[in-house]
């Protein structure tokens, strides 16, 4: 299967990646090869087989709905490269 340059640009947009024309060309070949190779899975009969989302029989873990002290906020806000205002990260306009 072959991914067109337009399809690659569309995927890049969904993934919030900006690609140069040269990158679009390079990745379209590489992604096409990788996805073509994956088509061999069609040889495996998976009728009535459940897809695995986890592999060790995990069960949901429940925590008590109890308030605990969490003094992380300052340390976490120190990490942002954006501005902080009123204990919130200030972001640029959406549009």
């Amino acid at each position, binding site marked *: 299967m072959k991914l067109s340059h337009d399809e690659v640009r569309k995927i890049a947009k969904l993934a919030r990646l900006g690609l140069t024309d040269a990158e679009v060309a390079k990745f379209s070949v590489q992604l096409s090869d990788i996805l073509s190779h994956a088509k061999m899975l069609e040889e495996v009969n998976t009728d009535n087989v459940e897809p*695995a989302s986890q*592999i060790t029989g995990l069960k949901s873990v429940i925590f008590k709905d109890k308030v605990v002290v969490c003094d992380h906020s300052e340390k976490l806000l120190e990490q942002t490269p954006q501005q902080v205002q009123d204990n919130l990260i200030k972001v640029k306009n959406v549009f």
Partner: protein
Amino acid sequence: MTKNLTTLTIAETHAGLKKKEFSSVELTKAYLDRIKTLDKKLNSYVTVTPEVALEQAKEADKKGFASPLSGIPMALKDIVCTAGIRTTACSKILENFVPPYNAHVYDRLLKAGAVLLGKSNTDQFAMGSSSETSCFGVTKNPWDLTRVSGGSSGGPAASVAADLAAFSIGTDTGGSIRQPASLCSCVGLKVTYGRVPRQGVIAYASSLDSIGPFGKTVEDVALVLNAIAGKSERDSTTPDAPVPDYSKSLKKDLKGMTVGIPKEYFEQGVDKETDKAVRDGIEVMRKLGAKVVEVSLPLTKYAIPTYYLIVKSEASTNMARYDGIKYGLTAKDAKELAEIYVKTRSEGFGDEVKRAIMIGTYTLSAGYIDAFYLKAAKVRTLMKKEYEEAFEKCDVLVAPTSPFTAFKIGEKMDDPLAMYAADTLTVPAGIVGLPGLSIPAGFDKKGLPIGMQIMANQFHEEKALHVGYAFEQATEWHKMKPDLN
């Protein structure tokens, strides 16, 4: 004396510390000196932490050596968060990121008294099989500096193999501990999914990622595993499975053990010398009393596409958090929010990370999710069943770790599929959540290390360690050291 200290195993070092033959400070200085002299040849460390190391070593000397890891110098793959110490994932997007908390595995090692020498080089975000995608350059193989150390945990493997750390911690999603251990000639253990907590370790593929040790011997790896394994309140994928004393399962004979040879593993383009070394190794096991049977795992040839469809899908989700807002790199001169996202991610991520994100975005999208991601997830269910049936016939599966020995730097960089194929024999354990131990099993005509892989059923690390230990003690491969002078 200084020269000898860095050649010691954890077990030997612990004995020496207890007898006061040397202190943890002297030992740590010996490793730091060796790193200063030799790591410029290997590039296994991203950040060396001499002040932290010496402070921790002083503490260990004061407290005494109650635990086997007390005062023992180690390295951590640079995706393991260390509070106050730069943790980069070897990517420009986190180049100056300093975590505000420790990964649980680091906390457990600190509790056991281990000393942090520094953070190790890795493929960017642990995506790769050669450590070439690190933004800090490749880690060179200690046995041949023109070749790769393997990946993604190339730094942790090379540093242990070259005596630049007494042990190290890496991660294994599809082979990232076992393959570099094989290429560098040291012991590397992939644990069962959930055996060791992942909290604070930068995620690649959350239903496969595992944390595990590199050591100079099987015993050393068992000692580290004792300190890091077990249920964690910070990671709900760590079940309440008991943690035995793994060092007690190390016996020199294999009476009563059945070794399974997975036929199809040897049909995946394994080179002749590797095939011979591993088959010779299985003969050693037979002589030690093991029963040897052949088993068939017909889905083996589908493992690579199954693997990369799942991990690249999960990775695309995990990589979405790097957006230039909460931490890490942010693009300068971006005027709108969308521009911040696109520019930050384009500038910050390397090619393999971008490829992974794009593959995952495509395979999870409406119209394609059934044919790609869900199909792979169904094959995963079938593979699990295949391995469960195999383990009814044997205690462990033994095969080569890597189809070939260390390849030249640059050789596979233009061919992503060829790079993925390096993991043909290691991805099944990732897909099925099994433990796998890679141990030194010989060298090829070029003097490059050959590794043998021992896989066990989930939560049966003790069987892999037992078989590995018996083989190791009956052979001399683990005693060979590279000449870096």
